[in-house]
């Protein structure tokens, strides 16, 4: 009988010790977290000149703890099926939180049919996320890649289990959101944390930012070639006859956002009719025929760092992109034909435009420890 009692005690202690183990199985009743202090610290964003106000959802205010949790989730491959892919796998800090492949590989090397998008200044966007705008909030956007079979290929139920048995995450979810029990860790809270981190990814320190929005008095901030490119970009020609007009800003303005957040068919796909786009883009979401082949105009901030270009990564260089737009591309009934029509550009015009695009590069955030991988 004594042996039985001792065995029972040992067994009980063994189960209890597993409860806190990172690799343990959560008990059905979860773990009481109320012993961990919950005192979130509000985080105030500083909006640089040229950027608009940012909408912060009332049910997801920015806190130091929420942002830090989001940063950890962003860089942690725990969100993927085989712990090989994190958000940062396709959104690299040194690539404008984008990457350099047409179709970034997901779990098992599988690829989709769209390029990743930059996350810099993503918190200012209000017209939908993804190339096709299918998510209306960052919180919703953050939910999708986890279960996409060509991205993280995981299911949220599993992710929730992994997070609920992870000692550090249990504590961080408690500190960020005040949950009282580890079973209250949900995909919604994880998405909120990711969205909080993403809202802090602000960049506004390119040479053109300094000239246009920070009124930097340095007269040599931009070269003559870059200034000419700026005029082509914004169609700012003051009536010079025959001067090149790029019409670029119709889709890439929005102050320092360099994205007008519009959905356009940019004439890269030749189709017989609007029904024939292999990737219908916005049209697949809205069901409107005239939205077929339309994709969101991405930010041009750091565009020089994010080749290849377009939603399908079909152009390798900025020169190829400019050549495409100058050629006029492929007509379809939903192409806005004035902006995308053959242009009489000289080689100098093309060089100037590409030179201007390089002035939108901001790498100053590279050294921001708040953006960095916390596991390195």
């Amino acid at each position, binding site marked *: 009988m004594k042996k039985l009692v001792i065995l029972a005690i040992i067994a009980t202690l063994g189960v209890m010790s597993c409860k806190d183990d990172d690799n343990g199985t959560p008990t059905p009743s979860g773990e009481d977290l109320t012993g961990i202090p919950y005192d979130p610290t509000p985080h105030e964003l500083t909006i640089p*000149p040229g950027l608009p106000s940012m909408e912060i959802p009332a049910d997801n205010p920015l806190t130091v703890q929420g942002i830090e949790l989001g940063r950890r989730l962003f860089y942690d491959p725990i969100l993927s099926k085989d712990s090989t892919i994190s958000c940062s796998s396709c959104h690299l800090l040194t690539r404008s939180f984008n990457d350099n492949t047409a179709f970034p590989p997901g779990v098992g090397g599988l690829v989709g049919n769209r390029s990743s998008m930059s996350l810099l200044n993503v918190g200012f966007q209000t017209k939908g996320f993804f190339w096709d705008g299918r998510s209306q909030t960052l919180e919703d956007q953050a939910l999708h890649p986890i279960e996409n079979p060509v991205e993280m290929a995981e299911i949220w139920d599993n992710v929730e289990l992994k997070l609920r048995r992870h000692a550090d995450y249990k504590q961080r979810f408690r500190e960020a959101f005040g949950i009282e029990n580890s079973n209250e860790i949900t995909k919604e809270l994880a998405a909120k944390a990711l969205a909080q981190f993403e809202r802090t990814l602000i960049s506004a320190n390119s040479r053109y930012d300094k000239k246009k929005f920070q009124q930097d008095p340095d007269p040599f901030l931009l070269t003559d070639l870059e200034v000419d490119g700026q005029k082509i970009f914004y*169609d700012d020609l003051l009536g010079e006859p025959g001067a090149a007009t790029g019409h670029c800003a119709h889709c890439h*303005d929005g102050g320092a*956002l360099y994205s007008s957040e519009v959905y356009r068919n940019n004439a890269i796909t030749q189709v017989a009719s609007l029904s024939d786009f292999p990737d219908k883009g916005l049209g697949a979401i809205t069901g409107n025929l005239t939205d077929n082949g339309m994709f969101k105009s991405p930010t041009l901030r750091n565009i020089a760092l994010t080749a290849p270009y377009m939603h399908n990564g079909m152009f390798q260089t900025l020169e190829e992109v400019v050549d495409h737009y100058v050629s006029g591309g492929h007509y379809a009934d939903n192409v806005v034909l004035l*902006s995308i029509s053959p242009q009489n550009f000289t080689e100098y015009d093309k060089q100037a435009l590409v030179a201007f695009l390089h002035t939108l590069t901001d790498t100053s955030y590279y050294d921001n420890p708040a953006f960095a991988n916390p596991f390195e």
Partner: protein
Amino acid sequence: MRKFAFLLFLAVFAFSCKDDESPKTPTATVNLHFSATYDGAPFVLFQTLDYPSGNAIRFQNFNFFASKITLLGEGSTTDHLLSAVEFFDFKDNLDLAAAQTPLVRNYENVPVGTYKGIKIDFGVSEESNNAASGNLPTDSPLRQAFASHYWSDWDSYIFMKSEGIYDKNGDGTFDQNDQGFEHHPGMDAVLTSVTKLKSFNLEDGQTFDLDLVADVFNIYVENGVELDLSDPDNQDTQSLSDLPLAERLMGHWEQALQF
């Protein structure tokens, strides 16, 4: 003395009641309905339409800012500002049913009285153009349309976007040989104030439908003469050199707005 005290109590009670029952200011609700038409017919995007030149035209986008939307009081009724700024976008006018459904804005607590008409500025004010975008309330139409309608090079909002394609070669079809147009007038100089007079009464508790129509045809045609869209000078309003065309198009709001 007891009677006096009782009367005093009653008086105090009566005065206190008076404060509680102060008369409510009579107000009404105004539902502003904004529709778009083309030469009087519902305006449908991507639909082939007749242009006075005899050639066809097709619109792809039409939207605009309306600011300082004000009901003009008559007699003892004072003017009432319904809205500082609104953004009307007819992007969903993709079929007849949608085109027959107006865009609606609701304004509550509008003082009752007799009004003689409405005044609207098409575009936004100089102050709005100069305001720091970082301070805009996130629910403001100026913020919501900031990315798509703030033209950095002018330091101004684009007041109206009218985009489409004109059947330049007159073959009845649209293709790459035809002419696109993008009219994006903006800048302080082209802010256009329009007043339309039509008397109406607002009564206490009433919900009043105020129906406005923007006729796109009248943006482009004046006294039967259309804007020649085959002329390169008339195809866009992007640079300062296009200011005369921007003024011409915005100036047509006087005839385009129907009330």
